């Protein structure tokens, strides 16, 4: 079972969390002004990288807060977790979460 570090509560077992897919997808400010294709991008299309992935999580069985995580999808290593309002942390070049 993964161990995930909630930015507010600290390290906890994965059963307390939910993953909600890719992070940093802003809702279009004026949906009615954009094309169907752009809207389709927003609601349907998500990255599915092998390696570093930015994603949204909630700590449901804890503080119930949303946060973002940088996870390596190959090793499941969490490189960083941070609040939705925080700037995206820089990923250390030597840390791709391989270990």
């Amino acid at each position, binding site marked *: *079972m*993964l*161990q995930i570090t909630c930015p507010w509560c600290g390290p906890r*077992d994965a059963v307390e969390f939910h993953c*909600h897919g890719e992070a940093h997808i*802003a*809702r*279009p400010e*004026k*949906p*009615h002004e*954009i094309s*169907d294709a752009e*809207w*389709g991008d*927003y*609601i349907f299309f998500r990255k599915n990288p092998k390696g570093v992935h930015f994603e*949204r999580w*909630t700590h*449901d069985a804890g503080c*119930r*807060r*949303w946060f973002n995580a940088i996870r390596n999808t190959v*090793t*499941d*290593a969490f490189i960083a977790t941070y609040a*939705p*309002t925080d700037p995206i942390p820089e990923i250390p070049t030597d840390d791709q979460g*391989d*270990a």
Partner: protein
Amino acid sequence: MARSARLAEGGRIDRSKSVRFKFNGESYQGFKGDTLASALLANDVHLIGRSFKYHRPRGIMTAGSEEPNALVQLGEGARTEPNIRATQIEIFEGLTARSQNCWPSVGFDIGAVNSVLSRYLPAGFYYKTFMWPASLWLTYERFIRKAAGLGQAPTEPDPDRYAQHHAHCDVLIAGGGPAGLAAALAAGRSGARVILADEQNEFGGSLLSDAEAEIDGAPALAWVGAALEELRALPEVTILSRTTVTGYYDHNFLTAVERVTDHLDPDAAPPNTPRQRFWKIRAKQTVLAQGAIERPLVFAENDRPGVMLASAVAAYIQRYGVLPGREIVVFTNNDSAYATARLAARAGARVHLVDAREQPPGPLLAEMAALGVETHLGCGVVGVSGTKAIHGVDIAKLTEDEKGLAGPPLQVSADLIAMSGGWNPTVHLFSQSRGTLRYDETLASFVPDKTPQKARCAGSGNGAMMLAECLREGFEAGAAAARDAGFTVETPESPDAPALLDSPPRQIWTVPTVHPLGQGKRKHFLDHQNDVTAADVHLAAREGYLSVEHLKRYTTTGMGTDQGKTSNINALAILSEIRAADIPSVGTTTFRPPYTPAGFGAMSGQAVKDLFEPERGTPMHPWHLANGAVFEDVGDWKRPRYFPRDGEDMHAAVQRECRQVRETVGIMDASTLGKIDIQGKDSGRLLDLVYTNLFSSLKPGRIRYGLMLNEHGMIFDDGVTTCLGVNHYHMNTTTGGAARVLNWLEEWLQTEYPDWEVYCTSVTEQWAVATLSGPKARDVLLAVAPEMALDSDSFSFMTMREGVVAGIPARVFRVSFTGDLSYEINVPARYGRALWEALMAAGAPYAITPYGTESMHVLRAEKGFIIVGQDTDGSVTPRDMGMDWIVSKKKEDFIGKRSFARPDTAREGRKQLVGLLTEDPTFVLPEGAHLVSAVNPAPPMPMIGHVSSSYMSPNVGRSIALGLVKDGRNLMGRQFQVPLMSGRVETVTITEPVFFDKDGERSRG
């Protein structure tokens, strides 16, 4: 009575404690400290069971958890357990066990006909047989269920209790042999929190079966004793015996099964003690010291009872004081089995030693000669006489290319074969940790290479086969693990242990016999548990299954409960020979948890029966119980489904309840409805965002019904929201959607609009809610709320009033889900039952009836009110539901609005909500039934819609149904067919989805 194979002395058994047990109904005697296997061998019982596929007689092959053959059905009745390894069962007074997979007895088994038919049961048999037509599946399945499988699962509930334990430690050490103990000492001395687990009843690992081993000039077990004593004195060290680390999962999360009382008579086990304890361990670091397992040799008839691993024979002699044969052939390709020959000869057996090598080390040969052991060099065992026991062994010189015999076989009299094909490091946990393996040419086996996890390997599990090396690696790994966990520790100096001879083996992966592989009757078994032979691997390869992953699944090698512990490398090696490729390029399959089978009891722990899942009950729940309610689960809630009277069934009760609501008044417990208190200056903005209609304009005291959509424009919840005051709202959600909706609000607030000032609080459990519904609802309420103005002008439909009801401060919401005059009376939860009882008393003059969810469903369906999740399925828009009226045209944006303009959402002809009336008014359609425009003699037939809600309505006086039908609103009055599973075809007419009080006068009145 058979002869006793028990030696006069020696072993770690307690000869003062005699233990009686039964096997296949026969009574036997053993000693405390015996396993079932050692005690049976002591009684000269070698035939233990029948094999999986061919029902061949099988005996005991090993002395440990890797045993593929000697699986027994342990215990009786509710406690019976199948597939338990006789080599791991510690006997206790009164233990009973039976052979598996044989009928009527292990000695005479009818299924053994499979052995004769073996040419019709080739590799891939399952895949070849179970093909189209599907109708034959039923026949195959019956055959397979009868023929396949090993033991039998108990049919009664498990009477035992199990515990679960969550633990965190700095260093977890799997394996308590020399390397594991050394690691525990090094890590434990640093003050680190250490868990040391070993699957056996005693620590020491291989040293328990090696009375000759020495450490620092003293018996090795003295060192083991001192190590344990030191570890027991360290407060942060937990020592777990009889505990198998079964799984290595992500982020150093490991599971272990501790068999707390399995070695005791269950009726005499200490009270308040679980049978087993399931450990869930998060370890900062791990040291894997699982040891090594001896490799069988693949020779003809190598599955006969009496063919054992050489190390197992040594273990039975030294650990259990049992000499399992009198005439023993030791067949080896390496030095390690010479110790077995030595021990057997000294214990009084006549020993032949067959070494595949031409020139084993001279000192070993000299020792054999001195002991009177006859040696056969450059030879192999090429045949075995006897089926249920061994009578003789054929020994022959092998050709240089190892493909044939260089001379005629010589038969020697023998009753036991001790084989050694080298050693395989036990890399299972390492492999489970996603560790990669590296092929070691010297060992001719795989050793741990790299793992992404915080794990280290030590000892023979790491490829270190000499005791001194094991100890050194253990100390180093333990110290390094402690350091990486943040502790300061020096690596202890490793003690000395004499090195043994270790000259190169002659690796023969398939020992030839008198006929070519796959011809003649002699079989070379690879996987004893799944009955896979070397010939099967050749057949699979010929049929194109050349990848190890394919080979594994096609032949099922390594897929038994033993996980191929003794078969894996041999299978890979034979495949690589066939492919003329080296073993590393052929690769390995991945080992998966659990290392040894773990029972569901341990994994479930206490989460069974009433403790399986939490239950939620409302404050009125005790009243419902006392009044005979039948409950249904809605999420975790227990909701009354109906309240039967005098032997009524559900149908009768629901018809009565529904009629009473429309005639006078009914009362329902609506406490489970989701309730969210929303405050803050941007509350209205949030509601405008998540609902399709406008809420920011709602005045205090007013209520509005709303639909919530996802961004795809599809309905995902509905409910009413009330404005309690300026920037203060009370939101109702569906019972099942309460948590989902709260999360939905929080998602937008926390991630997209963190600058909005809104506070959402779940108040579902703070309020108890009784709903009065029916023409007499006002009269009942008036009787208990004389201070409240209830006339329609003062308290109109879709408004909320605060007041005192039955002496309790209350919020009364005038909304209606039945279509009749209704009041939802909310009081603080602790007054819920008092309110309920007061309303029941006040309603008595009107024959008030409590009604449950089933009647609620009928009443709302009479009105065509939808239930989200029943009449919608995540692919339905408000327009599909005919609810355009609730979608704001004024609002520029709300969640889901933009998707209305998507071509697929906007197109004509989508499935739409309609009413459905059957031709036969007494017939109630099954929900989920499909509508077709024409009935074909057989499927497929194009469906145009489905039934989503269907009931017998007493108030409409006939059956009614709601459904989703393609372009349904343009098909009013049209008739379609509903073909049913029973063969009946019902004709339905499409109607408006409102069946009762179409103008809605009753709820407004």
